[in-house]
């Protein structure tokens, strides 16, 4: 077999569970119409709770995902990933013959089994109980979601779980893309899953002072923090050749992946490194910055991220940011940490499919330190050929993905 160095990678299936409901379409529709899934959350275990909202999956949706009898060996983080993967696989029309060694799984998670960890620590700490969940280890381990997805479908190719905080899903998608491009596998189920809305996790996020007790307002002058989210996003990526061979409906092409490290400060972002990451993705895609019509920003709504990211965007797209629309959809689905990159790539693909840039909800006023009006509050219809999604994580880990409209002859 002759190695094809320029294997193109396409998207043939999407799946998501999020605060916006079950399904990728529910997520895309919510981000386009500006219908936020952020809702009140209360944790009985917390005496003090300052932040009272999160992008939590609704009760009815949760009941549907978990079923009548919760699986004894699966955490919500694994169930979310499975629900998203089942949808993506059905969407792509994959059959049993498409799995085996030809299919990899690359599904990241920042926290892994937060619910089991939280429950068992509370029980151990408060009661001194030695009767903890004997399945705690396999439920907590970060790679549980990726392993359950590989078992569900008999995907026996490489199974990866990157745990790189808020870049987990974007890097996982990029790694899947690379495995396909290098000819290791024909297809890969890629994405991220997070079920972090647990008392202990929530409290330590509060203590870091990066969550807002008000509304999440990315890029707005009066922004004062993020809102946590949860959920899972899974995409079916395939080599163009194998997608065409099975007559699959091609949604778009994934053409660029950039990732790098700040190697600087654990928490403080570095705009030069973020810019360099976006350039790496553009270089791989063979695109000029002016060919990107929409960027789904990391846009957490913290003071530091938004200043840093816009500085980086100006570096890449030009001081005036002319011809590119930028928004953050985190006020709609929350910051889903290890799932964020997958949910947001799906949102960006939604923008491409609908030819419409989704809005930044809750935006009130341009911050003079930033000077950006990020598609405020209402979607903007526009011709889009290529879109970008950024993830800029604690630990100084940056990741950028580029999706573009599929054209058979390039």
């Amino acid at each position, binding site marked *: 077999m002759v190695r094809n160095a320029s294997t193109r990678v396409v998207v043939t299936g999407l799946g998501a569970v999020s605060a916006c409901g079950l399904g990728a379409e529910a997520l895309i529709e919510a981000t386009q119409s500006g219908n936020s899934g952020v809702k009140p959350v209360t944790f009985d275990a917390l005496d003090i709770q*300052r932040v009272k909202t999160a992008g939590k999956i609704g009760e009815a949706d949760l009941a549907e995902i978990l079923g009548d009898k919760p699986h004894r060996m699966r955490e919500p983080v694994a169930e979310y990933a499975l629900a998203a993967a089942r949808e993506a696989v059905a969407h792509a029309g994959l059959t049993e013959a498409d799995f085996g060694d030809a299919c990899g799984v690359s599904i990241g998670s920042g926290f892994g089994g937060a619910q089991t960890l939280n429950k068992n620590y509370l029980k151990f700490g408060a009661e001194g109980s030695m009767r903890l969940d004997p399945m705690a280890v396999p439920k907590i381990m970060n790679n549980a979601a990726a392993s359950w997805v590989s078992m569900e479908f008999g995907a026996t190719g490489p199974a990866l779980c990157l745990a790189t905080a808020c870049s987990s899903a974007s890097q996982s998608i990029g790694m899947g893309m690379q495995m396909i491009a290098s000819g290791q596998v024909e297809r890969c189920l890629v994405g991220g899953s997070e079920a972090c809305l647990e008392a202990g996790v929530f409290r330590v996020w*509060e203590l870091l*002072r990066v969550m807002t007790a008000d509304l999440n307002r990315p890029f707005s002058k009066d922004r*004062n923090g993020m809102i946590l989210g949860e959920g899972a996003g899974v995409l079916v990526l395939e080599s163009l050749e194998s997608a065409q061979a099975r007559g699959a409906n091609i949604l778009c092409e994934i053409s660029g992946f950039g990732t790098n490290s700040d190697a600087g400060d654990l928490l403080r972002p570095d705009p030069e490194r973020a810019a360099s990451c976006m350039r790496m993705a553009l270089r791989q895609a063979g695109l000029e910055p002016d060919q990107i019509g929409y960027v789904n920003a990391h846009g957490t709504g913290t*003071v*530091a991220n938004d200043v840093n990211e816009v500085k980086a965007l100006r570096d890449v797209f030009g001081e005036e940011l002319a011809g590119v629309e930028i928004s953050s959809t985190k006020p709609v689905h929350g910051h889903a940490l290890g799932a964020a990159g997958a949910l947001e790539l799906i949102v960006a693909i939604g923008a491409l499919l609908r030819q419409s840039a989704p809005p930044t909800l809750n935006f009130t006023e341009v911050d003079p330190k930033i000077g950006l009006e990020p598609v405020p509050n209402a979607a903007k219809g526009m011709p889009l050929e290529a879109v970008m999604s950024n993830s800029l994580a604690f630990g100084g880990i940056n990741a950028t993905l580029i999706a573009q409209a599929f054209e058979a002859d390039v």
Partner: protein
Amino acid sequence: MSTDRETLTRELLEMVAEEGMIDPSEITPERPLEELDIQSADFVMILMAIEEKYGAYVSVDNELTDVVTVQDLLDLAISKIEAHQAEEA
């Protein structure tokens, strides 16, 4: 009843010293925090202490990034605490 300004200022200065792990005698209002080696991680500790003592949740916002001196931090903390007390009243 809200704590009076003078007491609040004194308590906050003690808090900055304790959480920033610096000798209280070194702290004067006009000194830049950077000079006292108070960094973002110390800010988070100071904000946690403010929450514990006064019940005011202060997230990192634009105003906090403009803080340069000890006095700037005191002014901001006092305004947040007073705003919180007004809300509770």
